[in-house]
């Protein structure tokens, strides 16, 4: 009888065969996770790189590993915050003006710009395709119109990228009045007008506010034009037409990533210029032309 009582009194907690259900103390977390985005030509780039531009290891370093780093950092920085479901572009536009969230802006902008760069690369099958893709005629005409020739545009673009000291991006953008221009952004600067506080168009170590281009457009305008418009109304007063709410100031079409880790492995310490010239042949001009399509059917050159 004593033994029976002892065996019956054995608490269930000591019985290893019973599975205890795990009760979570908080609600299940539901969030969207950032992943490395797929490229159009991912599969071939991973195995054979971008021929005559990146080796497979160089592509792995510049895209796979680096983008994974950016994306993991984004997940860590946004996890548990109200921004955990926001897209990369939304993050960079939201935090362009907050210096205490500079890390989040930098990683979001860098992820975005890096993807933009790799999105514009074409895959040419060796021995079958020509050396580079052809620029669609309307786009080539517009380039010739705005830069006096396509060759001038190429030289200017590469010279600008080569002259930048330090990491950054160089962009081909289309402005509000449909002009094509070259724009530089240092480090992880962003070309979007919504993030203009962090455009970083100049190297601040050697250009001050007084020198040319030291100020961004809005600041420069504010400091050089008349601000007081009291009493000026009507059609003859020279007031510009108010842009529509949220109007676009510029559209980025093409960019090159001049960060050293992108070209250092395949082109060496002094290989920046050679990398830029090799990159020129690997631009997918169809993608660039489609980026200029800000309205259905109204691409650059069809206006």
């Amino acid at each position: 009888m004593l033994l029976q009582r002892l065996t019956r009194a054995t608490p269930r907690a000591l019985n290893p065969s019973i599975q205890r259900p795990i009760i979570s103390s908080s609600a299940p977390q539901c969030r969207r996770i950032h992943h490395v985005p797929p490229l159009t030509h991912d599969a071939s780039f991973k195995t054979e790189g971008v021929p005559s531009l990146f080796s497979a290891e160089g592509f792995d370093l510049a895209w796979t590993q680096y983008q994974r780093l950016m994306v993991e950092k984004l997940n860590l920085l946004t996890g548990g915050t109200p921004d955990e479901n926001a897209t990369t572009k939304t993050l960079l536009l939201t935090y362009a003006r907050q210096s205490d969230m500079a890390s989040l802006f930098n990683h979001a902008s860098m992820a975005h710009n890096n993807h933009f760069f790799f999105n514009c690369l074409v895959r040419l099958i060796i021995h079958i395709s020509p050396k580079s893709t052809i620029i669609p005629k309307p786009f080539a005409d517009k380039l010739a119109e705005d830069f006096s020739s396509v060759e001038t545009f190429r030289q200017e673009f590469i010279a600008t990228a080569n002259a930048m000291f330090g990491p950054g991006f160089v962009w081909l953008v289309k402005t509000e009045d449909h002009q094509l221009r070259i724009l530089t952004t240092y480090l992880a600067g962003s070309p979007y007008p919504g993030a203009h506080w962090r455009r970083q168009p100049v190297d601040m170590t050697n250009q001050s506010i007084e020198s040319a281009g030291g100020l961004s457009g809005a600041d420069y305008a504010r400091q050089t034009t008349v601000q007081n418009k009291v009493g000026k109304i009507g059609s003859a007063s020279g007031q510009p037409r108010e842009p529509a709410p949220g109007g676009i100031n510029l559209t980025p079409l093409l960019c090159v990533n001049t960060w050293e880790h992108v070209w250092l492995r395949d082109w060496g310490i002094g290989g920046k210029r050679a990398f830029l010239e090799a990159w020129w042949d690997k631009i997918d001009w169809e993608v660039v032309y489609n980026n200029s399509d800000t309205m259905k059917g109204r691409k650059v050159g069809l206006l």
Partner: protein
Amino acid sequence: MIIRQLMLRQGRRALFAPTRRWIRALNTETIEASLEHHIRETQPIEEFVNSQSHVPVQPTDALTSESETEELTTAETWEAIQAQKQTTGPLGSALSHLYRPHELVNNPPSPKDISVESLIAAQAHLGHSTSLWHPGNSRYIFGIRSGIHIIDPSITAAHLRRACRIVSGVTARGGIVLFAGTREGQERCVVKAAELAGGCHLFERWTPGSITNGQQILARCKTKVVDEFDNDVTHLFGDQLMNRSVLKPDLVVCLNPRENYVLLHECGLNGVPTIGIVDTDQDPTWVTYPIPANDDSLRCVQTIAGVLGRAGETGKKARLEAADQGIITFNPAERLRNPGSRSGSESRPSR
């Protein structure tokens, strides 16, 4: 161009006489600064060339030259913003999908989104307790777990795809599809599915006899006539509709057959094919085309109703596209006289 020809004639030195250097500065400039720089450089060239030749050079100044592009309206600017968002918005990272219940109803998935993963996520594989099963649907059951039968989701997917083809086939031929779901919470998805397919919905109790005794029960309901473009042309056929019989659906999609036995029985008596969600405790022979799935999970029901609605939308779109090309894919209503013709001629035959 003009400047180059002048250079050849006048010589490079003459044209490069001004002190400003023509090599564009390679320091980084803003757009506005670079534009002003450009204008400052080209104005002396224009002045020089204009002074030398009789043909004036076109000014490149943005203010004096005519703008080639017209001002965009607010609507066009909005369209441009949306197009740019689509192009550059997703760049940076790929975000994983997050389930949001309202999206399943407002923007339902299409038949190509049917996958085993999405059906399991919608709890379509969870059947009822093993003691309550109907042996007639044993072929759909994968196994048993936690005391319930598990429906094989790949079988669910196959049956759902078949049902989608049937719904789109019916709507492509101008048939009336009735979506019926009388359980609580099924109203929104039933209405949305009917809206997409251009059919009818039912989310309250089915009035028994609406098909078998339809002439009595539905006598007060109005009938309408539509042409091949789905435009209402009832006003042309007004007096001809007075003595017509009431309509019956050409296909019935029932989201809870368990509670709608009468509806399904009437359909069976009148030769109306039915599609229904059949759970492990239900008789699969009640419907013509069963979809073995979980009828108790609202997410599962919304997924299935949404997918069938999208399939109906595809069929309807195909019918309207054919009509645009003059091809009629349906049999026009019988014994309707062409409006304006006195004789008892048939309406125009279909191809």
